[in-house]
């Protein structure tokens, strides 16, 4: 009798476990892949959200708002809600949080590195190849109500940056690179002449010379207590570009981590050497490069071309008080090179991805808005706010954009010389730009690359002995911190739990269910074995 009851309880528990399991499976199914509807339903209202990033620049905010207003006038049945960010990292974090609850935005400014992580959600990011090519609603499509660029009109290099595993998951929105903003007045005061192309050797040599002090501890070059001859905003870019220029390993397309190599060690030693000479610091350690440059406390400031409106003593945006501004000539140059004959510089800037939804009409509405962001009016207006360049040849070659470029230096606002020179830098060097391979975990690797420079710089400042043992330990710590040591060769479809945070509740439930089922199965087998044994012993 008791045995029969136990047997029934086991059976019921098994069934319950299976139910939980199936429920878990259902919950983890994700979204069905997007299928393009034949017609866009204009009889229904579609409300979509657009998470955008601006560079703490209200003109950019105004351009987003105007783009939405103009788009809604063309499509009165689409309502676009704008949510603004000033930090890509926050967008990334918020998107990841929202993927598990299916509350992602419809359209989102992003970086391909981030998309690789977003793609760990099943069909969460819309693959754009079919949409782009559609005759009716694709790029330049017949049923699109505005002058949309064709796929051929998007700068191929920029579109290529949005490809993951051979498929397109985003459209480029704006592109920038890094520039070296040089205080030419100081370079010449030190007895140097700027070369046609900056080299790392030249920059380090001049920076070391600029770090010399008098007996009272004031810098000879500016007579001030503060001087950071060479300051770098994004040390992740610094490491990535130096490695690329040296032809050294960083990562490969399969997601293998190659950064912990001898060239990296050599570069870190160079950074340490010049930090010790007082020639180098970083944004994270000291502050914005523009503030030091504009105060006459810096010779070489490397920052994005999208930060050009802050650079130079006549800059339209300035963060230091007027009495601290120094008078000097600002020159905009490509970042330093190891091989001037073959320059290499990073391509960066926002792209736009679409998140999948249950209603394909909603996705189509999002797609139409995304295309609208590539129209000439939006592209030229936004690119002109900073040292960005438009991502379409259609906009770059337009009379309006050419007129804008030709008016370089006419004023210190829209036609601010440094800003337009920064844009020209990228226009002239588009073919010299590169991006790093995208895979799930590539965002962490990028952080790690910058962290190594930060740690070495801090180490020297903190009087630590930055030697081989320090770098060995740094490699270990960084690999562990950014989880680069856990696996290699991760494709974009694998899960980076570090990037995604703790497992969702459904997944935990699913795993518990699995474990529970195994326990119950074992229990059931054990009961059967005991029963059998008793029968045998009863013989």
């Amino acid at each position, binding site marked *: 009798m008791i045995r029969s009851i136990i047997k029934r309880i086991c059976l019921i528990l098994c069934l319950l476990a299976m139910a939980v399991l199936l429920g878990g499976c259902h919950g983890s199914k994700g979204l069905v892949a997007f299928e393009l509807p034949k017609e866009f339903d204009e009889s229904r209202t579609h409300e979509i959200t657009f998470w955008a990033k601006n560079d703490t620049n209200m003109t950019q905010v105004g351009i987003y708002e105007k783009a939405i207003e103009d788009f809604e006038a063309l499509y009165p049945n689409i309502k676009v809600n704008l949510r603004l960010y000033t930090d890509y990292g926050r967008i990334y974090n918020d998107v990841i949080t929202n993927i598990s609850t299916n509350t992602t935005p419809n359209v989102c400014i992003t970086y391909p590195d981030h998309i690789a992580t977003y793609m760990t959600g099943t069909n969460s990011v819309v693959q754009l190849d079919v949409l782009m090519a559609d005759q009716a609603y694709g790029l330049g499509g017949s049923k699109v109500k505005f002058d949309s660029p064709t796929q051929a009109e998007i700068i191929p290099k920029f579109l290529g940056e949005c490809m993951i595993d051979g498929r397109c998951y985003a459209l480029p929105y704006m592109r920038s690179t890094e520039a070296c903003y040089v205080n030419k007045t100081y370079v010449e005061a030190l007895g140097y002449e700027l070369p046609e192309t900056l080299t790392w050797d030249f920059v380090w040599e001049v920076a070391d010379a600029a770090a010399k002090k008098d007996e009272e501890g004031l810098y000879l070059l500016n007579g001030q207590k503060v001087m950071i001859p060479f300051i770098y905003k994004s040390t992740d870019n610094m490491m990535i570009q130096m490695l690329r220029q040296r032809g050294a390993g960083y990562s490969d397309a399969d997601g293998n981590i190659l950064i912990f190599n001898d060239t990296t060690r050599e570069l870190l030693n160079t950074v340490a050497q010049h930090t010790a000479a007082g020639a180098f610091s970083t944004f994270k350690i*000291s502050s914005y490069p523009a503030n030091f440059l504009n105060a006459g406390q810096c010779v070489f400031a490397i920052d994005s071309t999208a930060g050009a409106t802050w650079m130079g003593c006549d800059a339209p945006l300035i963060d230091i008080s007027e009495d601290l501004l120094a008078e000097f000539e600002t020159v905009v140059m490509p970042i330093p090179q190891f091989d001037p004959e073959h320059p290499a510089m990073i391509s960066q800037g926002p792209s736009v991805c679409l998140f999948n939804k249950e209603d394909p009409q909603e996705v189509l509405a999002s797609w139409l808005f995304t295309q609208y962001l590539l129209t000439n009016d939006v592209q030229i207006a936004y690119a002109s706010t900073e040292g960005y360049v438009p991502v379409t040849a259609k906009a770059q070659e337009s009379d309006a954009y050419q007129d804008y470029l030709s008016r370089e230096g006419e004023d210190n606002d829209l036609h601010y010389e440094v800003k337009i020179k920064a844009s020209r830098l990228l226009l002239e060097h588009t073919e010299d730009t590169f991006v790093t391979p995208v895979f799930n975990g590539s965002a962490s690797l990028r952080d790690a690359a910058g962290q190594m420079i930060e740690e070495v710089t*801090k180490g020297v400042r*903190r009087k630590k002995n930055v030697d081989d043992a320090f770098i060995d330990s740094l490699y270990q710590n960084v690999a562990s911190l950014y989880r680069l040591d856990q696996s290699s060769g991760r494709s974009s479809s694998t899960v980076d739990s570090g990037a995604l945070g703790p497992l969702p509740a459904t997944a935990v439930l699913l795993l518990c269910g699995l474990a529970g089922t195994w326990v119950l199965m074992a229990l059931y087998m054990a009961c059967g074995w005991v029963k059998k044994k008793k029968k045998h012993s009863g013989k």
Partner: protein
Amino acid sequence: MKKIFAIVLALVAFAAFAVTGMAEGVMTYADYAAAEMDTEVVIETYVQAHQSWWDNKVTVYTQDQDGAYFLYELACSEEDAAKLVPGTKIKVTGYKGQWAGEVEVMDGTFEFVEGGDTFIAEALDVTELLGTEELINHQNKFVSFKGLTLEGVEYKNGEPGDDIYLTVSYNGQSYSFCVEVYLTGPDTDVYKAVAELQAGDVVNVEGFLYWYEGVNTHVTSIAKAE
């Protein structure tokens, strides 16, 4: 003789601890202020407020009877961040740094001081120090300003949700203050109070004396002066 010397030393150390209430190796505020940049610092201090926890880090405003500290991105679990309530005594080890004029503890770790006393600072009125070189001596303290004229309010993104930049003036000189969204978000009284103010209003302000290329108080309360 050696034994006597050791006992005397131990007694001195105990007496010092009893008088200052500080563990061995912990700096006084004066020690901290005198320490060179980029040196390791160890302090015991009292939490006054903190910004929102994120990515296993939290930025904390602390103060003791002698001075104040800004602990930038202190390593901290979310669970511990919840325990960093005003008044709590913590022991912090980190490096002294300076970012855009703000002297802070960087790369810090901390532990709660078991059985420690509590301290919550009264706002120090520094109105008359505005525009003087003495103001920076009170950096990071909880302070108040009386009778400032609000010249402008600017939302970082043009609309509520992010930082709010306030331009205030006193004795004909303008200063930039900030309602830091990670300290006092849109749901807080101060964030809402700013929305009710207009340029030209005379206001009283409380906040932490943060620095960004000059004084840039992180405002925690603001009200029209009566």
